[in-house]
């Protein structure tokens, strides 16, 4: 697994990587994660169940992403891959240049590669155009791509000009047991609407700013809890000042482990995103027993069964109407959100995700390795000028690899011992039993 984004940074990709790796380890695979150094967190770290994380010292430029180093990452990447006897390199998130580089180098070294895309991109703004070119470059010669929703798959296929058969849809998952509903936490006298998201333009905070005062004016017994932080925080605070809603709108940033406790205080979860590949937030909210109101964008309509969610267009009036409907549904007790957890437990589990990812790995292990000339041909097809440029880059990469093989021979790289997961598990169990016995005494 390679991505710029991993703990201690918090976010969807980070937790996806962690949970997927954990489940794959439980299924008897060996998984390591390569990411960049976070502050003084450098070198190798071991997480639960022997999940090894390599924090490669690369400079960070913007929002935890590293700049493209082209070949700078290759020597250390090669050593890690050889040390750990890796056979599949799985990159995550298109923003991460480390993931792109890892995929290219892995292909040069003759390893199997896989890529997971976690977000959607348009086709019209300059940053997306550049991003899409990069993606096309890396994905020209990839074995398989995983997307988190069907909409995301369509998007990725178009962006990177892939064969749709080479793209699988494997949704994200939640740990349903961490989001158990708790009706006793709710305030029975008022209806509480919870919003938890990064407060940015893309998350539709402008809509939220417009909607909150209107709902508060109409219903005297509705409260808002708005959790999160970001550049749009000021707009929300101004809205609260202007409409004198200090006693009815709670603003505050929340830590990842407090999400559940915040969620269960509400009856309705509101998501105002303008674009969303999957939106794990609404699944977590539904798990915690909240009725979800969401804008109908991107992959959101695929995520939740219709009885758990109310859709609205990303327009102020429509959103207000949907919230009104949901408030009435809650007040008349037309829905039983407390049952959502059991239903979702089956739908989105990490075990299922790991199983399906494993299938992808099995499939790509069966594929034949194309010779270098074949790879060059697929890069050549990227474009009239870029095609040639990409070919030069790949050829150089290949030569660099040959040079590395000569200067740092394979057999001089020490192989890391495998983490004895089964033994570890047994020891854990024994320790648990001893603890229990001690308690009993």
């Amino acid at each position, binding site marked *: 697994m390679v991505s710029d984004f991993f703990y201690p940074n918090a976010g969807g990709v980070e937790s996806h990587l962690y949970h997927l790796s954990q489940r794959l380890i439980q299924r008897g695979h060996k998984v390591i994660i390569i990411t960049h150094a976070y502050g003084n967190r450098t070198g190798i770290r071991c997480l639960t169940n022997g999940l090894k994380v390599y924090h490669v010292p690369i400079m960070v430029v913007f929002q935890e992403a590293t700049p493209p180093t082209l070949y700078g990452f290759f020597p250390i990447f090669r050593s890690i891959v050889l040390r750990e006897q890796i056979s599949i390199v799985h990159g995550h998130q298109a923003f991460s240049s480390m993931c792109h580089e890892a995929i290219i180098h892995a292909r040069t070294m003759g390893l199997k590669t896989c890529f997971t895309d976690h977000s*959607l*991109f*348009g*086709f*019209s*703004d300059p940053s997306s155009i550049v991003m899409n070119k990069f993606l096309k470059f890396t994905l020209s010669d990839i074995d*398989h791509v995983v997307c988190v*929703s*069907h*909409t*995301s798959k*369509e*998007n990725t*296929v*178009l962006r990177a000009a892939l064969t*749709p*058969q*080479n*793209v*699988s*849809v*494997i*949704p994200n998952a939640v740990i349903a047991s961490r989001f158990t509903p708790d009706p006793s936490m709710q305030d029975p006298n008022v209806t509480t609407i919870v919003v938890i998201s990064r407060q940015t*333009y*893309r998350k*539709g905070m*402008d*809509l939220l*700013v*417009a909607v909150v005062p209107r709902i508060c004016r109409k219903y005297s017994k509705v409260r808002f809890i708005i959790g999160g932080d970001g550049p749009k925080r000021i707009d929300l605070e101004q809205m609260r000042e202007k409409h004198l809603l200090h006693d009815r709108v709670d603003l505050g940033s929340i830590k990842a482990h407090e999400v559940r406790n915040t969620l269960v205080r509400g009856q309705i979860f509101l998501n105002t995103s*303008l*674009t969303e*590949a*999957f939106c794990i937030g609404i699944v977590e909210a539904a798990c915690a027993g909240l009725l979800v109101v969401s*804008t*109908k*964008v*991107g*992959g959101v*309509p*695929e*995520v*939740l*069964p*219709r*009885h758990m969610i109310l*859709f609205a*267009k*990303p*327009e*102020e*009036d429509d959103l207000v109407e949907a919230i009104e409907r949901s408030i009435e549904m809650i007040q008349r007790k037309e829905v039983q959100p407390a049952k959502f957890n059991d239903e*979702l437990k089956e*739908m*989105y589990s990490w075990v299922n995700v790991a199983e*399906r990812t494993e*299938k*992808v790995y099995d499939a790509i292990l069966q594929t034949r390795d194309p010779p270098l000339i074949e790879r060059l041909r697929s890069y050549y097809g990227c474009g009239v000028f870029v095609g040639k440029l990409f070919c030069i880059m790949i050829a150089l990469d290949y030569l660099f690899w040959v040079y590395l093989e000569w200067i740092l021979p394979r057999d001089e790289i020490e192989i890391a011992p495998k983490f004895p997961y089964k033994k570890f598990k047994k020891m854990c169990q024994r320790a648990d039993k001893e603890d229990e016995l001690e308690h009993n005494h």
Partner: protein
Amino acid sequence: MERMPTVFNYCPRDGRPFRVDEQICPLCDFQSLHAPWIQSPQKAPWRKLLYVRQDYPDNYVDDTFLEELQKNANVRQYEYWSVVLESTIITQHISSIVIFVAVFIYLLNKQLSAHALIIIGTAATAIGYIFWDWSNTMLTPESNFQRRKIFKGAALFFLTLLGLTPILKTLTVTTSPDTIWALTVILFLANLSFHDYGSDNRRNIKYPGSLSTNAAIFASVVLASRFETNLHVFGLMAFAVEWFALFPMLRRQVRSVSIRGNLALTIVLFLTATTLFTRISAAIVVIYILGMAFVTFVCPFWLIWIQRYKNEIHGPWDEARPKIQHGRSVDYN
């Protein structure tokens, strides 16, 4: 095994709720009483949903794949002659710059007296103002102009300009002519590239427009230092203000009033520029005519031809644009 047909309260394809009387989704013909095995006895059809386990591999590609893709949805098809007509906005502006340069050269060579320029300029401004005022009252009768304010402003401005003339004259007098010419060319190019061609609104206060006007005025300040008398400097500066600040407003007005008037104005400007420059340089006239022909006739054709490569893709993954009422509009794109 006997199976009950599934009753859908909403359409799984587009999420539209079924009304009580609706059997079929009006958007996609999906039946609310869904019994897919009637069509295919072995397999339920694939649905674009994540929360159901479906009997299809993860990389299954359905026929509905990319159904919601829209290509070139917002593309406007251009017509050759209408584009030619639109190109007059650009040719008019190029012509006006050429005319200004010609006037400067005449003034410098003393083929045109400063008195004549000031008189012609004032008269033309007066006529232009009368037209502008008349057409404005015609188009928007309810708007009340404060004519007194405009006249007061104009008088004050020209008096200030007159007062500043000696300063403007000596401002860049020590700079060498080569620098002045090069600077003028750059400034006029800036004027040409940042001119506000697009917006039709008459009360234009956008930044690109002001940048362009400033560049032109600065160019004339720089040029004015080449004159010997204050009257010349004042004449050129007054003309520059009329020509680059007021005349574009008048042109915009003409364009919104009548197409023919616009065309006539273009031709008049073109002929004026040509005649003025024939006495200065034949080569420039040829280049100017060729350039005009290129902008007017070749560029529209080029634009239409290049349209075939237009490939605009829209789909559900696009960032939605939030619609917010009550005057709080937010537009970041």
